């Protein structure tokens, strides 16, 4: 194979890494930063995809669909936090596992009632529908490049809010020592409800943006859930930088694994995770202890 072949694969790898970070961003916030084990992450992603499908169909425009869909996702997140998650902060993590697993089942059933069992897709917006010639017979869709750009914006935004702002400081402090932060006069309940709904909206946003290059179908969240946990675990909890590097690593290993070691393709990512956890149990950028 020529050099251009590997360059195109490198592009595929980086682009896949961006997509993975975007997909895992909601989980990074809820699990990585807030420490809530959220198995329903895939369901929120699915919710976003179905909202995009539905609202784009109604309005005829993906951007309008996203604009209308985000507040709905935030509202869903807010209700879930207030009605269910909020009573579990004091309890063992196992309760969160149980509760969010129940949410998966509920969301799957709701999805079926609301949108049925067909496979759907969302059209790529007109002005991003073009493509770039890569090699003599392969082209690259502009929309995929757009997703990469969107991912960089999301990553930078998250990093800035969590690491550099007062809000981010309160969230990090609240996740570490809830009572202490509360006694300093900060309404942690309201804060967590807000951040949780942001996390849900972020997961849904990823589902919306990815919908034109993915397909929208029942059970789609389950594929997303596992790989998202891998991203956060490799990167180390509590670190957005870690999640980003983790996503990029997975993109590279997964893509070149498929090309160079096709028989091992399905286990490459998990092998990478195992190696990293053996070497650094807290993940690449996680704090030890």
């Amino acid at each position, binding site marked *: *194979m*020529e050099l251009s*072949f590997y360059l*195109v*694969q490198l592009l*595929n*790898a980086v*682009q*896949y890494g961006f997509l993975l970070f975007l997909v895992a961003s909601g989980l990074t916030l809820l699990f990585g930063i807030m420490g809530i084990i959220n198995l329903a992450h895939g369901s929120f992603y699915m919710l976003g995809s179905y909202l995009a499908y539905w609202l784009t169909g109604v309005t005829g425009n993906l951007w309008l669909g996203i604009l209308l869909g985000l507040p709905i996702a935030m509202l869903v997140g807010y209700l879930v936090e207030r009605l269910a998650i909020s009573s579990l902060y004091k309890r063992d993590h196992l309760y969160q596992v149980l509760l969010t697993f129940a949410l998966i*089942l509920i969301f*799957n*059933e709701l999805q*079926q009632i609301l949108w049925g*069992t*067909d*496979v*759907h*897709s969302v*059209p790529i917006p007109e002005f991003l529908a073009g*493509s770039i*010639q890569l*090699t003599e*017979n*392969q*082209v*690259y*869709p502009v929309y995929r490049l757009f997703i990469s750009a969107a991912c960089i914006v999301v990553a930078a935004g998250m990093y800035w809010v969590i690491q550099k702002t007062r809000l981010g400081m309160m969230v990090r402090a609240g996740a570490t020592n809830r009572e202490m932060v509360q006694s300093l006069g900060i309404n942690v309940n309201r804060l967590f409800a807000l951040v949780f709904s942001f996390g849900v909206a972020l997961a849904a946003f990823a589902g919306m943006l990815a919908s034109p*290059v*993915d*397909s*929208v*179908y*029942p*059970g*789609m969240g*389950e*594929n997303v859930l596992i790989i998202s946990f891998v991203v956060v675990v490799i990167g180390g909890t509590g670190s957005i930088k870690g999640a980003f590097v983790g996503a990029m690593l997975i993109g590279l290993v*997964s*893509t*070149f694994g*498929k*090309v160079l070691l*096709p028989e091992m*393709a*399905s286990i490459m990512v998990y092998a990478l995770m195992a190696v990293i956890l053996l070497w650094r149990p807290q993940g690449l950028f996680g704090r030890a202890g």
Partner: protein
Amino acid sequence: MSDEKMTGITRRDFIIKGAVATAGLATASILVPQSFAIGAQAKVKVGILLPYTGTYAKLGTNIRDAMLMRFAEAGNMLGGRPIEFVDIDSEAKPAMAQQLTDKLIKKENVDFLVGPVHSVVGMAMVKTARGDGPITVIPNAGANMLTGSLCAPNIFRTSFSSYQMGYPGGPAMLEDGHKRVVLMYWNYGFGKEVAAGFKESFEAGGGTIVKEIATPFPEVDFQAYLTELAALKPDAVYTFYAGGGAVKYVKDYAAAGLKDSIKLYGAGFLTEGLGAAQGDAAEGVRTILHYADTLDNPENHLFRAAFKKSTGNDADVYAVQGYDAGELILRGMNAVKGDVGARAEMIRAMETAEIASPRGKLRFSKSHNPIHDVYLREVIKGENRVVRVAARDQDDPAEGCSM
């Protein structure tokens, strides 16, 4: 979850049924035929194990709806007896298959068992049901083994074996003039069997497989493989993907600009029932299947119109397979006038059945697998249209079956 609901309803049923069965046994001991003992109006129990949630939800729903439609056309009577359904969501989860099958057979004592969609669920189901179990009709699961080494007199299939799905693809592509082909499929049991069937006939006909690419199941990130495909520059590619993966594959393939230079072929699932989701990306894609929307026979026209009317959805191959499962059970029960005890006679009627199916003529092989025509189809204006018959009376070798 529907499972939970079932338990509540059926516990009562079970007690009543148990009482009837005991009465039946008591009278049977004084040599009265069982059908009289239970009475002509006793209900026939049909157990259904299909997925209604997850990726295969649509398939399960269409199969069930079409089968129920066939029964409704027959007045909801099987050989003069009314029907009781025990309908369970398999969730297409192999881990649950054994337990759910046991529940239908041992607890519910069903007379017929219909299911499943997923091949691995099918293996667990057939292993439990074969022999003394209920008459079982498989309306989709394609694993060769189900009518191969696991074949049994009481096991029937109205769908296809994976071999039958892959094998006709070879000659069809050669006839279209494609000699150098890349073979690409989801790397799991069914995908591998379809690919093996294709490979056998394609190489025997003088074709060359440039490369075999098995992609992890159920992953849908195809970008790296499509780049590889572009670099290999074969005449065409033969694929096996289904459901959400098939939509993604066809869209990614078109988006990578490969459609014009490397012709895309596949087992029929690649485009079956997915027209709305794939849109223009699927135009010109050729697939091989034992059914097509536009098959011009009176049964198909009537079936499609009736299915649309009763469900509001367009029929597809899964619906056809469910419809024929209903038909096959009807044939069996009508032949014995509702006496499920006359098992040998019923099986004989079913295995010799010649059905005018919406797919065309349908018969059964010695191993109770379908023998049917297979069509080469092309997506034109969102419809899977017949290009030509790819194989007449396609049979299956039923490897390992000694029936």
